[in-house]
């Protein structure tokens, strides 16, 4: 069986949107795909040493909330201080109760499975971040380095 290749661009930095890249990458690796994730813009938050990602219902009318809150809870209240933290903690509890892996665990599984992770150097500069802010198993590169891999990939996802 020829080794297939999966290339993912991760652009979002919220807790909920952090799952798809790591779930797909770890699963692809288990299926024998050579896998690479390119983290750019807010996606860089996913490869910080300390993951402190939040979930926000703002701008996301599709997000289900407990006790039917998504039906009656006014959007304006969702913008109040503390709401984001509350929703994040509710989401984390929900995930744990359903046996969904933590992001830290999924990311670690990706590292173990030798998923190659590349961070966008331009974004690192743009937001005045330091290489030391990120996990060790990370390379830094630009758009051309992404295409070097993506150009030969069988599947390419923008998340």
């Amino acid at each position, binding site marked *: 069986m020829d080794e297939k290749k999966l290339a993912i661009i991760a652009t979002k930095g919220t807790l909920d949107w952090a799952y798809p890249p790591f*779930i797909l990458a770890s699963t692809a690796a288990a299926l024998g795909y050579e896998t690479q994730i390119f983290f750019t813009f807010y996606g860089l938050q996913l490869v910080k040493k300390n993951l402190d990602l939040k979930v926000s219902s703002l701008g996301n009318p599709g997000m289900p909330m407990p006790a039917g809150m998504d039906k009656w809870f006014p959007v304006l209240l969702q913008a109040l201080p503390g709401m984001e933290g509350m929703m994040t903690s509710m989401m984390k509890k929900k995930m744990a109760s359903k*046996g969904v892996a933590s992001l830290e665990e999924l990311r670690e599984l990706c590292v173990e499975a030798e998923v190659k992770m590349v961070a966008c150097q331009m974004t690192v500069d743009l937001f005045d971040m330091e290489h030391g802010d990120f996990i060790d198993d990370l390379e830094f590169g630009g758009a051309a380095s992404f295409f070097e891999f993506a150009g030969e990939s069988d599947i390419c996802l923008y998340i």
Partner: protein
Amino acid sequence: MAFDQELDASGLNCPLPILRTKKALGKMESGQVLRVIATDPGSIKDMEAFAKQTGNELIESGEEGGKYTFLMRKA
């Protein structure tokens, strides 16, 4: 049917049962059989898909008392 190793993935959700299965198979010899127990209903389709794509043989797949069991022979 006899098996060489057992993996209990009960309570775990996608993609963990598949990732644990892959890891367990990695430590086994070719031809050995792994029994996997899972509670994730999605694992029925996923185990089939995993076997098809990795070349490991899904010998048996069943449900008993809300638990799904699989027998997988390592390629």
